[in-house]
Structure formats: C-alpha cells, structure tokens
C-alpha cells in the first residue's frame, strides 16, 4: 500500500520504538509504568477517535469495551485456563462482535440521541456485571499468581505485558491512520459532516456506523484484557470507570478529534497534567473539575483541539502529519 511511502507512517513507527526502548534502556520500572498508562490512554483515545472524530458520534461509554474485554480475558484465563494472548484476543473479538450487534441497534439513533444512549450503556453494563455471578458479581475476580508462570514469572511477565500493550497501541494508531486514508474512512468523514447528504450520495450509513463502532471496540477490549491481567484483579467499578471514560473523551478532544496524532499528543499532555494535579496539594480533588473545564474550553474555543489549531496556523502541516 502506498501508505508506506508517507512520512507519517514512519513517524508512528518511531513513536512505537521510543515507547518500546525507553524503559528497557535503563530497566526503568517507574518509566515503564507511566508509559504503560500512556499506552492505554492512547489506545482508548485513538479508537474512540474513529467514532468521535471521523463519524462524529460521541461514545460516552467507550470504557465499556475496555472493561468487558478485561472481564472476558480474566474469566477465560482463570476459569478455563486459556493462555494470555489467546484470551486477550478472544476478548477483543467477543466484545467487537457484541458491539456490532448492539451497534446495529443503537446506531439507528442519530447524533445526540446515540450519545445519550451510550451514557446509559455504562450504567446498564455496570449493573449487569455487578449482578453476574459467573464473573464474580460485585466482588470481582482474582487471578492467581500461578497464571504468571507461563510468562516467566511475575517480573518478566510485567515486561512482556508492557511490550504487548505497546504493540496494541501501535496497532491502534496504524488502524486509525489506515482507516482515515481508506474509502471507508472517507465515508465516515462524510457521515460526520452531514449524514443525510452522505446517505443521498450512496454512503451506507447504518452499516458503516456499526462497523466503526465494532472496530473501535476491538483494540480497547484487547488492551483491557492485558491491563487487568497485569493487575490480577478486576471488579466493576474499576472496569467501568466513568472517570476514565470521560478522560478519554477529553484526551481525544484535546489532542484534536479527527486526527491520528491528536489522541496520542492529547494523551501525553493529559497524563502530564494529571500527574501534576495529583501531586499538587490544592488540586488533588479537582481532577474532574479541571478535566471538565479543559473540555469546556476546547469545545467553546478550539473544537479542533491542539492539532486543529496547529493546522490552522500552518496548513502545510496537513500534508505531512495526519
């Protein structure tokens, strides 16, 4: 594909390399942990961006994919003895499939109504899982340390998981990029601009929306599987963390919805901000407030986010970055 010839492709590759090599260079566990969080943010934000930035549909409940993927993976491993990679992938597939079916239903709702229903999704799924005994109900599930053995013991496993998450993050960036340059992506952008006009031109809106919904579920679900495996514990409030869901939206908007680089930059900036907030005595409790204020400012004054503003100052960048 002529994607390989575009500079941005290699930029993504470089970023992935940095993520992979930086902590390894010094065996720096602290750096690894913070970068790990970043990979999760980026994966979630990139995937969300496909729905939000391309097709223009806000999914307030994107965290559901992450949590459900986590649950599937943990369950498959602890109850059925599946190996990590298979369980995580299976989780991804299962959640995507569920997303496809479910999406076909709620995606009949246009724009704002859809967004509303995604708010309800979190509550509903949370309620459901809390009552679902095979998955530990409200107390969640634990993973026994034995499961870390096939990966070479706990310490080694943590590194493996990190690399896997970096790989997933890379895939999410590449996927976002590939979609954007594809015919499918063009259709999505048209839908995002004016769904009616897009339909009249022949874009099969319902099908495309369902596909992107399902697609935006896959990698977050896999990431969820890996993440919760690492923590060896999953319970509903962690899996369906409304705050994280919100943060992902803020990140995508901050960096620039509709761009590929946006979510990555946004994740990076936000994580810095968050780290600073958590350690600062005055602001420790104000995380949500700051996130909200940030989002409001972006929506009111810079809807294109950081990338949007950059593109407006330097339009030439548009041909170079995405």
């Amino acid at each position, binding site marked *: 594909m002529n994607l390989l010839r575009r500079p941005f492709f290699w930029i993504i590759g470089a970023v992935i390399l940095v993520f992979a090599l930086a902590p390894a260079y010094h065996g720096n566990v602290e750096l690894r942990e913070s970068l790990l969080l970043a990979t999760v943010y980026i994966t979630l934000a990139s995937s969300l961006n496909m729905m939000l930035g391309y097709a223009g549909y806000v999914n*307030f409940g994107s965290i559901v994919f992450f949590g459900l993927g986590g649950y599937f993976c943990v369950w498959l491993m602890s109850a059925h003895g599946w190996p990590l990679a298979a369980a995580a992938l299976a989780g991804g597939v299962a959640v995507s499939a569920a997303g496809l079916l479910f999406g076909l239903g709620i995606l009949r709702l246009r724009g*704002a109504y859809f967004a*509303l229903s995604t708010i309800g999704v979190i509550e509903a799924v949370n309620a459901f899982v809390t*009552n679902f005994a095979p998955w530990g109900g409200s107390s969640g599930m634990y993973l026994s340390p034995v499961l870390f053995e096939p990966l070479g013991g706990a310490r080694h496993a943590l590194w493996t998981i990190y690399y896997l998450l970096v790989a997933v993050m890379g895939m999410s960036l590449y996927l976002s990029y590939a979609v954007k340059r594809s015919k499918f992506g063009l259709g999505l952008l048209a839908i995002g601009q004016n769904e009616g006009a897009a339909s009249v031109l022949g874009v099969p809106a319902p099908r495309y929306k369902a596909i992107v919904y399902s697609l935006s579920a896959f990698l977050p679900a896999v990431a969820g599987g890996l993440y919760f495996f690492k923590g060896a514990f999953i319970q509903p409030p962690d899996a369906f963390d409304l705050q994280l869901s919100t943060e992902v939206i803020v990140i995508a908007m901050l960096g620039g919805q509709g761009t590929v680089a946006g979510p990555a930059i946004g994740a990076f900036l936000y994580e810095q901000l968050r780290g600073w907030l958590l350690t600062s005595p005055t602001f420790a*409790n104000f995380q949500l*407030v700051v996130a909200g204020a940030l*989002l*409001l400012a972006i929506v009111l004054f810079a809807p294109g986010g950081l990338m949007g503003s950059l593109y407006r100052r330097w339009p030439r960048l548009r041909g170079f970055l995405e």
Partner: protein
Amino acid sequence: MGAVYGLAAMGITLIWGVMDVINLTHGTMIVAGMFSAYLLVGSAGVPVYATLPIVLVGGFVAGVALYTIAVQRVVGQAPLMSLLSTFSVNLMLIGMGTAVWGTVLFNVPVALPGLSLGRYTFPGTHLMSAAITVLLAGALYLLLYHTRIGKAVRAVSGNREAAELVGIPTRRVLALSFGLGVALACVSGVLIATLFPFTVLSGDPYLLKSFVVTILGGLGNPVGALIAGVLLGLFEGLTTPFMPVSWIPVIEFALFVVALIAFPGGVLGLRSARPH
C-alpha cells in the same frame, strides 16, 4: 413519586424542545436543588416548602448564567458540541461538589402527616410533592400557551430563524428557556430531597429517568412529560419488590433505547422528530 419524575423531566424536555440542546447538567442541577434545600433548611431554618420559590429563582439565575457561559456559543453548531459543553460543565460541578461535600449521604427531614386509604398509606411528603408538581406543571402550561412570552418560546422552538425575522429576541428567549429548564430541575431536586436521602452523585439515575420520561412524553411537551413521569413512577413502584434494585437502571436503559428507536418523536409526541 412519578409526578416528581415528570417535573424533573419537564426541565429537560423544555430545553431540548426549544433549542435542541440536551442539558447534561440536569442531574447535577437536581442535586443542586437538593443541597440548596438542605442548606436553607439546615442553616437558615427556612421551612422546606418555602424554599421552593427561592430555589426556583436561584435555579433560573443559574440556568441563565450557564446558558450564557457555556451554551450560547454552541447552540447553532452540531448537537455534538452542546452535548460536550453541558457534559463538561457537569463534570466541573460534580468535581467541585465531591470536593466540598464528599460522597456522604444527606437528608432533609420533613414532618408531614400521611394519608391512609384502605391498605395503602401515602406519605405526606409524597402527596405534597405530587400536588406541587401538578401546580407547577399547570403554571408552566399556562406560561407556554397563554402568555406572550410563552408564545415567543414556542415560536423560537419551532423555527429559530423565522422567529428572529419577526423580531423576537431569540437569544434572550433561549436564555430564558434554559433558565426555566434548570429552575425546574432544581425545584424537583428540592421535592426529591424531601422524599429520599441523597449524595452529590445522586443526579445520574435521575438524569436517565428524565430522559426516559422525556422520550415517552414527547419532546418539548411538558404535559406529556408529567404523564409519562407518573407512568414511570408507577412502573418502578410495581417492579421494585420483584427484583434487586441494581437491575432497574438496566431496564430503564433498555426502555430508553427501545423508546428512542420506536418513537423518535416521543410516544405522546406533538411534533415529529427533528432530523439532526
């Protein structure tokens, strides 16, 4: 109980119907009403039901402020934007709320004699709330359909450009409607506070319920909202004894989605669905 749902929903349906904006701060505004009642009763010793007019005015002012700051700029743009804007304000409010009040339960004690009919006892607070709700609904109806202001509101919700051409100060009307919607939310919060204990985070379930009621009752239709609210209240009352409380959000959500898909304009909708 259902009546109060209806009241809460009226706030949402009004704003939605007039300006196609979905006010995601609605739930938090309800909680704001709850807290206002708490503070006024607790520290100022104001009798509960007397707080209503205060909260009404306060809510109205807050609503207008909210509109001017957060919503005005994005009213004409894609609904997505106003959604995100009210969402972010909501975040801020919740954040501040939890910082100040934590997640502790609060209560507004009210002593009112109940009414007993046969085997059922109706708590006095419930009756009072229902009565007040009906009163307010009636007042809203009168306002919308029998005053000049109401006419202006209805004109703007029908066709904003046309209304402007005719000389209606649309911005002020929009601000007014928004303020009214928020005021209704706050007032319903006061009433709910007399019925149940609450926390800073209590708003969300009511947000969901308000949406369900709004859809069932028809966008922009306050009377419909009231009726639908009562229906929902009845429904809840009937089903709660039979299943664990945590299932209720799931059911309501399912109802919500089904209702949206099947009735884009609301079951009792007076207007057809507006395309986005």
